[in-house]
């Protein structure tokens, strides 16, 4: 029974993990930028949701669209005004510039919001219900539903809609896409904006299930990395599998081996996946 409960918690946690990693995987796959500031955007999203909740008394789940909009504008602007300037630099440089962004954003957050721990704490925060003898925490379940819904939505968007197809076209062959009349500057900015918007939503949900402060970014970036690698960069559904895989693996390690070994497990899995199948568990081998 304990095992079943841990597995359930792992799957619910995994949904949130998947949403965290989705933006990173999208930006990485399309723009070939490993965005080290991704966790900082998650952190900012958490704060936006937090202030919408405390100052405007908006339910955190209803605040998510606004959070997404704010973060989308931020990401769109950054890609348009800054990252597009270095997009053709060697890989190191895009890595470095996003690291610089992470430092700057963390500093700004620390100045504006102070280093205090905060939680988004609606009155239904601790609520749960029983299902077949298992305890299902409601907030985690809702976060899981939002996360999977957004993943499927993103998948459909990339496959069916016109801007989604433009994004895939640009990622497959930039020159050919330009020859078809696609303006890459706008598509790149759109992609990065989508990535940060997803990070923002993930941040809002993260704030309702866990504590936030300005420094959570770096470790969340690392987690997102692991999930993106396990799931592969090809499609958003792989990221869901990666998230659930990591969530359950972490909780199972904490249960059977010890809570201090969760990092060993998650990064050990990362290294193994990289060595055995670098395109991700569900990735195509080219």
């Amino acid at each position, binding site marked *: 029974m304990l095992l079943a409960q841990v597995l359930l918690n792992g799957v619910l946690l995994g949904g949130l993990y998947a949403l965290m990693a989705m933006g990173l995987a999208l930006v990485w796959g399309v723009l070939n930028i490993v965005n080290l500031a991704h966790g900082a955007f998650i952190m900012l999203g958490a704060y936006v949701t937090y202030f919408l909740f405390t100052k405007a008394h908006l339910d955190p789940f209803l605040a998510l669209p606004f959070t997404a909009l704010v973060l989308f504008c931020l990401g769109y602007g950054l890609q348009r005004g800054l990252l597009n300037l270095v997009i053709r*630099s060697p890989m*190191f*440089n895009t890595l470095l510039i996003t690291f610089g962004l992470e*430092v*700057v954003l963390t500093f700004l957050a620390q100045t504006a919001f102070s280093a205090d721990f905060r939680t988004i704490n609606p009155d239904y925060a601790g609520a749960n219900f029983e299902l077949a003898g298992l305890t299902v925490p409601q907030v985690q379940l809702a976060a899981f539903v939002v996360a999977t819904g957004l993943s499927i939505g993103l998948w459909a968007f990339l496959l069916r809609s016109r801007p989604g197809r433009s994004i895939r076209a640009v990622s497959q062959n930039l020159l050919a896409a330009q020859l078809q009349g696609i303006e890459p500057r706008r598509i790149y900015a759109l992609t990065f904006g989508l990535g940060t918007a997803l990070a923002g939503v993930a941040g809002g949900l993260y704030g309702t299930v866990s504590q936030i402060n300005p420094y959570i970014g770096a470790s969340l970036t690392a987690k997102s990395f692991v999930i993106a690698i396990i799931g592969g960069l090809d499609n958003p559904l792989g990221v869901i599998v990666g998230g659930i895989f990591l969530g359950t693996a972490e909780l199972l390690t904490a249960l059977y081996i010890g809570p201090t070994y969760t990092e060993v497990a998650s990064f050990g899995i990362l290294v193994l996946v990289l*060595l055995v199948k*670098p395109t991700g568990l569900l990735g195509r081998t080219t």
Partner: protein
Amino acid sequence: MTSPARIVLIALVGVPLLVAVPWIGTPVVVQFGINMLLMATLAQGWNIIGGYTGYSSFGNSVFFGLGAYGVGIAMAQFDQPFWAGLGLGLLLAVGFALVIGLPVLRLKGHYFAIATLGLAEVVTAIVSNIPIAGQNVGLVLPLLKSDVLFYELALGLLLLSTLVVFWLSRSRFGLGLIAIRENEEAAAAMGVCTTRYKILAFMLSAALTSLAGGINAYYITFIDPAGAFDITLNVKMIIMAVFGGPGTVLGPVAGALLLSLVSEILSSKVTNIAGFFFGAVIIAAVVLMPRGLSDLIRQFRGTGWRYFLQNIRDHRL
């Protein structure tokens, strides 16, 4: 910048000056010097695998940490002298580079970077569970209050690292590494044994980095997993090397000197904004001078201020 005559000139003027610092400067300058020299050594160590070979390791902090724990375990647990500890750390780091390098150096680009980052996390977590390494609590080393000794040790190590890189820039081995960086398949086709070269470069990088870790551990007299295997150290050494100019002999040293100086001055004058400025410098440097200080110095006389605009024009979408 890499022309031998100029390097000899810089060395003849610079080295005696650097050696004399503890007798001219104040204790604060010496302490800053120790940190700066060790950071420069780390940047130079990274330069071998990242700058010359083109494999962006995010796992060099592991070598730093293993060097520190070599000294820590030998001195705190077995009452051995410092030198024995350095040797133990060196052995651990080089051995680790060999064992890990075999599978990991098969990966390329982002994948290599992330696999090494993952390894860094794994090793941190493993070490914080090993009793002989003091688990989470860490180890306390015997105190040796001699900043002059540590300064000269750090300086000696930096000189050694720079000499190694200087040798790389002129030797058959180093040219092989550059060939791997530029085009690995072509290098293999020209008869470079890429696997052996890459692993040797990784081990060389590990050796220098672990010595810096060992000196630092004895200097600060305390090590714990979070401090010794600090992941941000990876990012710092990469920034310093890339800021100065990766794949050059003096670039990483100049980058480390300049950035350490900037962040030191800022954190003493305006504590709060130092972090912000560090990030802003990195962003500006990537946009305006993506090939590092050494390229800026080489090109600036010819092109002047247009150098910065040209860089933006070359790399924007």
